[in-house]
């Protein structure tokens, strides 16, 4: 019933463009844009990450030299950016799975997006504080 009423209330312009539906415009679309961008960023990182880890087959010195460049404050900001992307993509990915598989998923997709944002702030905040303290302290 409630879905029928919301459909009636939405202005005609929104109906025509498909805005305000589950996918187009508003939260649904921006969460998807964010999911896409973070997915590509993590993938590109992973390609490079396997290459730098492969240096353990070259020599201990080569590996330590490259890993050593990760330990200053500006690289720490880059690592934090990557971790921010991973945390968003992971939590929003779970939301997508719930929307698709959980009976009430489509009904609560907005609430779940709020949950993703709140969890992101909490988990990333904790990571960032600890990571920066370790980087700057040591």
């Amino acid at each position, binding site marked *: 019933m409630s879905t029928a009423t919301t459909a009636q209330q939405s202005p005609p312009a929104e109906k025509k463009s498909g805005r305000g539906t589950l996918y187009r415009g508003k939260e649904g679309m921006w969460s998807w844009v964010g999911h*896409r961008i973070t*997915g*590509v960023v*993590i*993938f590109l990182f*992973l*390609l490079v990450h*396997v*290459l730098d*880890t*492969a240096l*353990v*087959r070259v*020599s*201990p*010195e080569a*590996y*330590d030299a490259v*890993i050593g460049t*990760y*330990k200053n404050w500006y690289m*720490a900001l880059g*690592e934090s950016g990557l*971790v921010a992307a*991973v945390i968003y993509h*992971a939590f929003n*990915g*779970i939301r*997508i*799975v719930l929307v*698709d*598989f959980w009976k009430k998923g489509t009904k609560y997709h907005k609430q779940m997006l709020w949950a993703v944002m709140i969890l992101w702030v909490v988990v990333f905040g904790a*990571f960032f504080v*600890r*990571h920066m303290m*370790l*980087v700057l302290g*040591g």
Partner: protein
Amino acid sequence: MSAQQLNIAAPRSGDIDPKYLRQSASSSSNREMFKWLFMRISGPILLVLIFVHLFSNLMVGDGVHGLNFGLVAGKWASPLWQIWDLTMLWLAMIHGTIGVGTIIDDYTSKDRTRVGFKVALYLASVAIIVLGTLVIFTFEPCMTDAAGNLMDNSPSFCFNQ
């Protein structure tokens, strides 16, 4: 104009002339279903694998300052971390390759462009999966140089052997 003339089939209705399809309908939809499911099964597993990976490398002990050859040698001495990293490598690479493949499909309309990007993507992915797998299985903690001496920066346990 009669109403009948305006009755154009929607693309998703399955009535598409086969000549406009990139593959036969049944094989392409099975593959799409497999990809769709794979993303949703690998995702939650990757969450656990990657969160633990980040936590154990960046949050415990000295964090990023503790990372060096010796730490990797210590971790890969245990089959648990070997299997952990191997699973993470394969799942993340396949998940990411399917994901980026979908994005290529979405933004390329010319067949030649699409095939070009996809071939490059698959070649890069296979190369990285093979390299990463070899690195885990051929890892040697106590490497020696041509003269047979332990290399610089070798983990301390190599000297006690």
